[in-house]
């Protein structure tokens, strides 16, 4: 079976995110959406994983993210999300 797994890499809360700040300040707030308080940018990888179950697909992905330093643990958090089965 094949499963879609999403890997989201986001800066840790204490790390500046100038891209998110610029989007908020110069696009969203300037565009009149004053109820938006914060924007954080993240990078997403979309993986198609062959595995026996969705849980196993997530575990394989988590392991590869840690082993290969897909994210730099000093400055980033990494979130694994299931995207459902695929053909």
């Amino acid at each position, binding site marked *: 079976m094949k499963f879609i797994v999403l890997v989201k890499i986001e*800066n840790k809360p*204490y*790390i*500046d995110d*100038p*891209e998110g700040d*610029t989007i908020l300040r110069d696009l969203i707030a300037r565009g009149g959406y004053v109820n938006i308080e914060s924007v954080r940018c993240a990078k997403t990888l979309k993986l198609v994983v062959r595995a026996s179950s969705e849980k196993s697909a997530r575990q394989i992905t988590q392991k590869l993210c840690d082993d*290969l*330093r*897909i994210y*730099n643990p*000093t*400055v*980033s958090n990494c979130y694994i999300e299931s995207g459902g089965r695929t053909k």
Partner: protein
Amino acid sequence: MLRIGIVVFPGSNCDKDVYQILSSFQNVRVEFVWYTKDKLQGYDAIVIPGGFAYGDRLRAGIIAAHSPVITEIKKMAVHGIPILGICNGFQILVECGLLDGALMTNRSLRFVCRWTTLKVENRRTPFTCLFKRNQTIRLPIAHGEGRYVVNNLVEKRLKRKHQLIMRYFGDDPNGSTYNIAAICNEEGNVMGMMPHPERASERTIPSYDSMDSIDGLTIFKSLIHYLGNGRNDTMPFAYIRA
């Protein structure tokens, strides 16, 4: 005859500049080392030059950090062999775990290419031993991901163990923590720096501002001095502390 290797990745673009400078020294044999090489023997020092290894895909330096040659360089680092990473080389040294921290997109979100002023904070390394105490120098930078970031704990440790080698002086080109431009490992034999010393080592390539310098040459002179005859009086920290 000293033997120095310059590592070349797909996307390195400062390798020949470094070669040009190092090969101008007498009794130095300089060799390019392709990134797939999985055995490095007989080298007195290694330079990882600047560029865009693997096109900076995913994150600058991360894919190159998994190359066979880096596995070898990690072994050499343990044995005290001087390893210098310049710009993309610094990013690779951070991503492979030889140096602390992370190099993130510049705070300005722009690629910054200009000259900057730096202060040499530590002269007890193979790369800075010929600088004067607290010397300020001029070197060019050219990077998009040069914002050096560490948490408070690591920053304190870097300060305590004298691992801060250069800081931007009166300048903040990328938003780095504590204006850090160059750091080394605890032992002092592995150094990463964002500025390009090889671009400030020849009078024939002056900057377009009036303060052109060849301060970068002192980095390479220091290395040659250390390897040639200065090892005893300029030992990396580990030896000094002992």
